[in-house]
């Protein structure tokens, strides 16, 4: 018996150890980090994951435009039934969008941390390795910039978590976060290639890093950190972009074309320095965005491309454009689609209509990729445009000097002149003529330009008005290229004798003259909106100038006193704003899970 027992025990032990081999299973369909990040291809996928966050819902797919940034003094949330959220300045610490934005930014940071941790592990070309390191460093810094922009002090994390238990991390003071952001971006600037070498605006280039550095320093110099020494850095980095003879950055001659290009996936690396890329249908459908649909011209028509158009432009923005400024009718759609039909109707420009106008920068009608997908678009988003660099340079220079230097004024004039019309300004009917049975054709001749189209209307055989004909893309067809007033003649219509004269716009109208530091500052504050409205910047501009609360309160007052009754609800967003809204609340679920976090004041 005894030997038998020993035998049993022995058997038991053998089985036990061999069973451990049996139980040592290896995953067959999941990729384990230990076996990954070995090849260039794998690293390309890893860095794609870092870029991916740019196009996420609360960032450039729509969230910044629809929820967080555009409800400055440019637009308001169109739906009257939704009344809660960051776009109404009544978000609570448990707001879903706030949490999503926070989550997505830290997801991007975590993915960048993974790339940086494995960058030396992969077997790849050292130049490409350096570029990728630069991209990861820059994108991580960029996501931190959005965090600090919104929340001020935030936990600064540059490594993957060691375990799942101990992850209480306190907020790092914003100044230190800015320090880290700028350090990493400066390192990245030395690693990434020049934009001409890349050839398109979807990747991080030296120009993109420099321009964003200017944006970061400008923010740091502004409220609430007021680190005014940083204006010099902002100016220096913007200047680097401007002076880059290799990249030779320049504004596209047509303001409209900048956005047409984005809708048609055409790159213009001279002006559109960095874009968030969105893709098209089929297997790429997951990488589509909502630019043009959630912020766009409202329509149900699948032929145009359906669009909710959640943000309507405010009349104050509309009214801030001078008559020769072509940017107005691009930024704010001067027409709308009748429900369910492709019929285009032009606004009458009554006050009522001014509250109904959709954002017009991104137009689904201009998309060329087919089929058009409902509510999802391939339209790229311009994160950094050259005109922004010029305006940032002008602003920094103004702040650094006792009065704006000529270089600052030149930069602003460059931006404005590009936007200015050289077409017909006014048409005056001098003689109505007689005998017209139908409206005569209005012909413009001479003046050195072309493209002006006007329509005459008749009554009792007389021409009674001559007006420029509206056009979907350029707004009114004032034409362009005129250096002197063209002659107007009337042909056809069965009558005779009608006469009219016209005047033209000139680029010189756009130019600003020398002004005081304070005047220039105020001018820039509204000029930035005219040039860059709805591009995810406005709220943060108002914040760094420390005018968020008074500006929005004024907006609320305007709506309440002069707005039509059916748009009174639009005042909600603006009347809710308080000092605490300079920072978003830390998501309450984060406070519960990370004991070292402290809530921002007022939430």
């Amino acid at each position: 018996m005894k030997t038998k027992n020993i035998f049993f025990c022995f058997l038991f032990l053998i089985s036990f150890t061999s069973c451990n081999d049996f139980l040592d299973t290896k995953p067959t369909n999941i990729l384990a980090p230990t076996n990954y990040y070995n090849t260039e291809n794998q690293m390309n996928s890893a860095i794609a994951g870092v870029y991916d966050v740019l196009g996420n819902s609360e960032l450039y797919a729509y969230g910044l435009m629809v929820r967080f940034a555009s409800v400055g003094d440019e637009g308001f949330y169109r739906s009257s039934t939704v009344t809660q959220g960051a776009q109404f300045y009544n978000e609570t610490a448990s707001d879903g969008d706030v949490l999503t934005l926070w989550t997505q930014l830290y997801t991007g940071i975590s993915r960048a941390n993974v790339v940086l941790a494995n960058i030396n592990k992969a077997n790849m070309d050292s130049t490409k390795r350096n570029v990728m390191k630069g991209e990861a460093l820059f994108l991580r810094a960029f996501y931190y910039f959005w965090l600090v922009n919104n929340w001020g002090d935030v936990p600064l994390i540059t490594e993957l978590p060691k375990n799942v238990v101990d992850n209480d991390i306190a907020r790092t003071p914003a100044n230190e976060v800015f320090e880290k952001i700028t350090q990493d971006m400066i390192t990245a600037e030395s690693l990434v290639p020049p934009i001409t070498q890349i050839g398109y605006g979807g990747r991080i280039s030296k120009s993109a890093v420099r321009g964003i550095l200017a944006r970061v320093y400008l923010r740091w110099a502004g409220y609430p950190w007021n680190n005014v020494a940083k204006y010099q850095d902002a100016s220096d980095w913007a200047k680097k972009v401007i002076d880059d003879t290799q990249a030779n950055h320049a504004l596209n001659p047509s303001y409209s074309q900048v956005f047409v290009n984005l809708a048609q996936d055409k790159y213009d690396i001279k002006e559109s320095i960095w874009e968030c890329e969105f893709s098209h249908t089929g297997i790429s459908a997951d990488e589509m965005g909502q630019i043009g649909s959630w912020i766009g011209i409202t329509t149900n028509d699948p032929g145009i491309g359906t669009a909710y158009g959640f943000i309507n432009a405010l009349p104050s923005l509309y009214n801030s454009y001078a008559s020769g400024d072509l940017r107005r009718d691009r930024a704010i759609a001067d027409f709308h689609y009748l429900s369910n039909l492709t019929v285009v109707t032009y606004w009458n420009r009554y006050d009522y209509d001014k509250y109904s106008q959709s954002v017009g920068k991104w137009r689904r009608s201009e998309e060329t990729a087919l089929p058009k997908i409902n509510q999802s678009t391939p339209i790229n988003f311009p994160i950094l445009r050259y005109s922004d660099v010029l305006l940032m340079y002008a602003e920094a220079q103004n702040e650094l000097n006792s009065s704006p230097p000529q270089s600052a004024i030149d930069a602003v004039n460059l931006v404005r002149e590009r936007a200015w019309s050289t077409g017909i300004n006014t048409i005056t009917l001098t003689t109505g003529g007689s005998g017209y049975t139908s409206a005569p054709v209005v012909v413009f001749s001479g003046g050195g330009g072309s493209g002006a189209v006007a329509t005459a209307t008749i009554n009792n055989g007389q021409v009674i008005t001559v007006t420029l004909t509206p056009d979907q893309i350029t707004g009114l067809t004032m034409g362009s290229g005129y250096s002197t007033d063209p002659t107007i003649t009337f042909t056809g219509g069965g009558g005779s004798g009608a006469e009219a004269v016209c005047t033209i716009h000139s680029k010189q109208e756009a130019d600003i003259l020398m002004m005081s530091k304070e005047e220039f500052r105020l001018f820039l504050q509204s000029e930035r909106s005219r040039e860059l409205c709805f591009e995810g910047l406005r709220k943060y501009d108002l914040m760094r100038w420390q005018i968020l609360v008074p500006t929005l309160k004024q907006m609320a007052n305007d709506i309440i006193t002069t707005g039509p009754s059916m748009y009174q609800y639009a005042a909600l967003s603006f009347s809710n704003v308080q000092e605490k809204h300079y920072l978003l609340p830390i998501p309450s679920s984060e406070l519960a899970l990370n004991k070292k976090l402290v809530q921002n004041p007022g939430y």
Partner: protein
Amino acid sequence: MKKLCILLFLVTVLVNSEQISAQTATINVTGKVVDKSGEPLVGATIIVLGTNTGTVADRNGFFTVKNVSANAEFKISFLGYQSKTIPINGKTIFSIFLDEDYQTIEEIVVVGYGTQKKTDITGSVGQVNMKDLVIAPVATFDQALAGRVAGVNVTSNDGQPGSLNNIVIRGGNSLTQSVAPLYVVDGFLIEELSSAAINPQDIASINVLKDASATAIYGARGANGVVVIETKKGIVSKPIITYNVSLGLQQVSKTMDLMTPYEFVKYQNDLNPALANSLYLSNYGLTVEDYKDATAYNWQDMFFRTAPIQKHDISIRGGNADTKYSVSGSLFNQDGIIINSDYKKYSGRISLDQNIGKKTKVGFIVNIAETETSGAPIAAGSTGAVTGYALYQVWNFRPAAVANIPEDWANEFFDPTATSGNWMVNPIQNTNNEVNTSQYTDVNVSTYLSYLIFKDLILKISGDIYSRTTQNVFFHNSMTALGSPLNPNNTKGVWGGITNWKSGTWLNENTLTYNKNLDKKNTITIVGGFTIQENKSSAFGLVADLIPNEELGLSSLGSGTPYSNSSSESYNRTASFLGRVNYSYDSKYLITVTGRADGSSKFPASNKWGYFPSVGLGWRLSQESFMANIKDISNLKIRASYGITGNNRVSDFGYLPVITLNNVSGYSFDNAIPTQGATYSSIGNPALVWESTKQTDIGIDLGLFNNRVSLTADIYRKNTYDLLLNAPLPKTTGFSYAMKNIGEIQNQGLELTLNLVPVKTKNFTWNSDFNISFISNKIIGLERGQTNMLSSVTWDWNYTSPLYIARLNGPAAMFYGYIWDGNYQYADFNEISTGKYVLKGNVPTNGLAKATIQPGTIKYKDLNGDGVVNSLDLAVIGRPLPIHTGGWSNNFSYKNISLNVFLQWSYGNDIFNANRVLLGGNALNRVNTNQFVETNNRWTPENQNNEVFRAGGQGPIGNYDSRTIEDGSYLRIKTVNFEYRFPSKLISKFKLTNLALNISAENLFTFTKYTGMDPEVSTRNSVLTPGFDFSAYPRAKTILFGVTVSF
């Protein structure tokens, strides 16, 4: 290596074998088996003890056994009668009477890795009365299991044909992991059993192992309880053929009362006069009154149907002493009571047991089942909005034609009144055009070999394989809401997809059983074993969109644009050592000690092995001499047990960090097809261990008056710790969740089972089985610093706030929301000018801006008195868990007639009736949609009540409040069966042994205060989110006529 360890094990076993003794002279024996009234007991079994020889009594009760030892004993047994053991003593002719047994006390119960006499069991084992269960006209056994066994809670999410039932034994152990029990079918351990694969008619017994003494033998898979199913095998008999056919009809038990066209237009006029005028009224010179005679479109009538159901079962069973066989087949075909929702099932089963020589026995079972469900799941929405739910579509679709469209448009697809924000299609057309079909093929082969090593020691080796393939196809053509080009939210055009899953298990078990009567008083049984198992799963599928030509349906997928391709595969392995010792002294003192060591590949190397011990004690007081005088007490046993069991239901590689490669996290550089993104989808947790449950059980078994009354009572408490929780991480880590071992939950309860024979005369018998369970649970620990856990349910994107709260030291689920306080009334306002009301300063707002609150707007309790109702005023508003549940089965038989009435109930639970949120008041303020009649009683200046808020007075959108919490208690006449058996004298002329006609009804009537269609509902069922009702497929009322024939 694994082969080696099995081999070594077998070698050891064989080394231990010994010879058994030779035999003596033989004779032939004949006899007749009858009951007390002299009726022959057809089919009574006669077994010669100590041998494999035996037979059954024929239709006249006669039997013959040849070549038996003259000094042997034989045992005669028959279900429902007390068995007798008779020594032959050289006699050759016997006349045997069997006494009826009210409660078969000598019953053998199948427990883990063996059988035990019921009297010897120290654990808590519930038995299903299969005779009562199989008469329920259902497709699978689990559909009829509710209320049958104390402590076993069976709920189905809803009544969709083929929908799964949730079986929870003694409360949910786990907060986020599976709480489904382990199934052991003919010894085969299956974690995810497809109940459809087993025909209820093939089941011989179902035993439910509840306490640790009974379940610890299943170690890491035992914590959720174990359901042990034995199927019918061959018997020693000439072939017995039984054919069973039932045909019947099903109907919806209750439909909702909806507004008439008049009421509807009146409501629309209250809600949005401009729209009502443009669609129905002044634009056409009509008034509300004109709609009193308008044709009403009753969409419910078109949606529900009276549906046929049929089932056929055929079996042949027979065999001799050495070979026993059983062959059976079944067909079940059910049309759903909702259009385009059907269920079909075919199954076949063969089992064979063969003796090879005196010591060796082999056998196998082959079971094949094909199941097909078609029709989109009604309770699962097709989109993130309420409009994606079929039943909601039916209810909310307007009952009145629009004034300018006089023609009948019930057959049109697109609703001409739809606007972009309120896009609707005809729900009947939509449901009819949806293709959503799942086909399941289950194949199970079980084999065993048992070898009698020496007199008391048996080796059993078994090998089982089980495979399930599932194919799901769906197709949204242009006549469905999801595929229509008219749908402004449809980005995919016409689209469809197909997914195939395959899962498989193999199991090898090797056990040694040693059973010895040491002397007259001491009996010991020892079981020891070693088992290995592997589970594999794989899936692949594709979805194509923008399909240009839809005419070919699924075949046109190839012409579409590939939208997503998916594939996955995984596996896990388990190896276990198990052992149990049962010791009985004089059948008075009983002890069971069990242990199992489980190794699982699902855990990291340091935590792969878990050890699960238990001990059970029993004291049969009725065997004590001091009880001998108390004649009325026929049985009295006190039991106690304690043990630890585990739950390993985590994903196969949950402890490992995972990188996922996909398009969603990719990026399109330079307009190219996106570079796929490689990102961490999980951070892993190298410290993951099993969930463990400590359970204490104290029970008593009492039998009175020769067991005419028997009572079993158990109280238990089980604490589950190291809960496997997908716990939230701070988002700053870059991860949202990680699998962690966190927290502790306690379940405790009381179970009573009472079996009575209230009336027993020569011709009339009444048997009554009653059971009741009280269960409560409590959260003992959560993530550090966490005092509660909030859970939300997904149904409409407006409702993202949590509806459930699990508080520390409170139940795992309570409804959570605002306390409804009626409506704001005129007294709450100052009338600043005629008709213009402003809320008084001291009256709290409901969260909306003051200006929007008007008389008749919904009102909530401002609990903290700060003048505004916000998240600080959220409170517990209901308890979804019942106080007690149970069942009561009554069998009446008079001569050849029998009647079974089975009642089942649930008491004390609340249901959140989400249908009423939208249709009994219109909380989403959706225009041009119908409402329940409840909304007719809305607040108006003429009807200033505190019931339904005024049109448009819904308050902040997305709030959950107590207005739609309802008492979900119910008592249901679940199954009624009436049977007539033709007298055997009559049918024996036609060589039949049995001919019976029956009528059975399921869900005949329900007593409840619940206003929804069915109180037995939980459309988002989990431990954390029970009792939610939205767009549930209502349970059918079924009536079947059946014939059973045996020959």
